[in-house]
């Protein structure tokens, strides 16, 4: 029994974090926000460098040119992408499509489970979708995309529809469930990273900002809110790691663990966003301040692919109603 990341997993995450910090600073995220309305595919900051690092194909099998890693290996790196609010369909491409897409030159997004939207659908070559109980690939050319504006404009969201016959099946119900579960574990990891980043920035801010002649971080009302965020992160993180193990090794109850992780990480990130804004005061409410780049991503990802209540209900159907594991 050993519940900890390996040095390799951690150093991979550190390398990914360094690339993200260099390649997608807030200015570049904002530039993407400005491009929200263009129909043309946009260049995603950091993606070329992360592709060079192997991150984008980390979960693809080696015979298909990937790194052949599993979800556990890549979770710390996914957390790092969340900390940086890395834009782009990283989770969809790496966690969801990676293991099922043979062609490494292709970029993918996905919309599975209760997700009506795909992020960056217009910026990718192929979409992973569920048609009936089958896991399918849908070429962008065969997809009917209706552009929608996410609260996080960097997501370049689209509602995805298709004509019968357009999606190409690549797996049955088991593969469909597995792809969905890998996806929500990836989003859960990013939500954790977002929560961590918001907590850190807010702690920095409340140490610096003075009112009544003292740092506002010395006020207990502020301290206790941020302590609660720290607690929420502390107990969501192990569920995400546990879910990574489950989707890699457990088969049977993987869906339950994955949904527990997504629910807990979504709640932690929403709490972090709420308290981060409150502890910043009006400055956090301004468009110029960067907090909302993280906050809005958290709001988006916490709802994407099933919100916390949806995932708890999925857990309930197994744990309470005794249905077979998803």
């Amino acid at each position: 029994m050993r519940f900890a990341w390996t040095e390799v997993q951690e150093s991979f995450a550190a390398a990914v974090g360094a690339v993200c910090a260099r390649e997608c600073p807030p200015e570049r995220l904002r530039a993407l926000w400005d491009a929200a309305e263009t129909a043309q595919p946009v260049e995603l900051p950091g993606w070329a460098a992360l592709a060079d690092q192997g991150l984008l194909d980390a979960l693809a099998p080696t015979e298909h040119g990937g790194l052949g890693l599993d979800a556990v290996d890549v979770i710390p790196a996914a957390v790092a992408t969340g900390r940086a609010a890395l834009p782009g369909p990283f989770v969809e491409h790496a966690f969801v499509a990676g293991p099922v897409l043979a062609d490494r030159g292709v970029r993918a997004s996905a919309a599975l489970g209760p997700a009506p939207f795909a992020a960056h659908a217009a910026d990718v070559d192929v979409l992973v979708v569920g048609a009936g109980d089958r896991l399918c690939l849908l070429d962008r050319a065969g997809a009917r995309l209706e552009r929608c504006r996410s609260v996080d404009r960097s997501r370049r969201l689209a509602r995805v529809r298709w004509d019968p016959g357009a999606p190409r099946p690549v797996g049955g119900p088991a593969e469909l469930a597995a792809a969905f579960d890998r996806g929500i574990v990836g989003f859960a990891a990013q939500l954790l990273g977002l929560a961590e980043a918001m907590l850190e920035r807010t702690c920095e801010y409340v140490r610096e900002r003075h009112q009544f002649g003292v740092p506002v971080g010395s006020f207990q009302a502020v301290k206790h809110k941020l302590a609660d965020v720290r607690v929420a992160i502390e107990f969501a993180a192990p569920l995400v790691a546990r879910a990574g193990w489950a989707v890699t090794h457990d088969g049977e109850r993987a869906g339950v663990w994955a949904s527990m992780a997504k629910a807990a990480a979504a709640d932690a990130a929403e709490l972090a966003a709420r308290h981060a804004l409150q502890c910043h005061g009006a400055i956090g409410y301004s468009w110029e301040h960067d907090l909302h780049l993280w906050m809005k991503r958290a709001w988006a990802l916490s709802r994407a692919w099933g919100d916390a209540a949806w995932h708890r209900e999925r857990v309930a159907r197994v744990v309470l109603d005794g249905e077979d594991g998803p």
Partner: protein
Amino acid sequence: MDLTWSPREEAFRSEVREWLARNVPAEPLPSGDTREGFAAHLEWERRLHEAHLSVVSWPVRYGGRDAGPWEWLIFEEEYHRAGAPQRVTQNGIFLLAPALFEFGTPAQQDRYLPPMASGAETWCQGWSEPEAGSDLAAIRARAVRDEAGGGWRLFGQKTWTTRGAFCTHLFGLFRTDPTAGRHRGLTYFLVPLGIDGVTVRGFGRLDGDEGFADVFFDGAFVTDDAVLGEVGEGWRIAMATASSERGLTLRSPGRFLAAATRLVELWRRRRGDAGPATRDALVRAVIAAEAYAAQTLAVVTRSAAGARPGVEASLAKVFWSELDVVIHEVARDLLGPEAELDDVWARGHQFALAGPIYAGTNEIQRNVIAERLLGLPR
């Protein structure tokens, strides 16, 4: 990451599970916070000890099994899963023993650990006083040097002492140097409660059981070997082992996993009456119990690698105590009108509400988290 148990650990689990299946009393014992109940629980402790299961992580020579932290965790999980009796010896074995192992002399360890393991001697914790709760360093109970006798004379009052009326011994903090700073002049004493000059008066907790006590000291004499660690080092010793109380040792995840399982069973019986809000709250509790168990795996991994429990224990204290409250609130919602009945759930609910108060209130824990983990200014 490797979430599989070794064959040795699995064998240990089966042994514990089988022993508990054969030995756990079919009918719950009377409350350990009453005099008769305490005696019944000590009888249970004696049987646990005979099976070398009362203190599995201790050295064999003190009645343990030299079990590592993983086996300890397995033991706890099985213990709670089996619905085995509460540990009335917990303040000794979980709170004092870590301090004895770290700061006690070999003579003190030999003297105190074996009877603690068997339940022949039982310990209560003498920290709080009427004027010193959260502000523990404000304690006024004193120990005055008695040079002629070659020891110390104790004066003052401890309160809220759990099961003080039934225990044989008290470990507590006393001020030995009134001129030193608040935290400096404190000393950690090991005191038999039967000696002259000690008066114990039990009183009722919220549930009416006599689980609290006031302990009065009026010149009670103890010799030098009643001091744990150095004179004047009491604060440091108490704080070094406070993490045991806040974290894992006092409240292992097995306890909450078992409570969540019982809650799910209750839900199956009462689901007809339960609305969607209760269903959602119940799942939240189940997820939180699993989160606590998973976080514990991370903590035990670090402790198996030699790390000491630190301020992170404050995170666990807030989490488990609030989880326990939520579990019992959901149970009350499921019970409907029967939630009014004075039964095991009502008792559990009342005790759960004490969790955010004892072992350092959750407000104090949040201060610790903010100041020591998040680096916010005091």
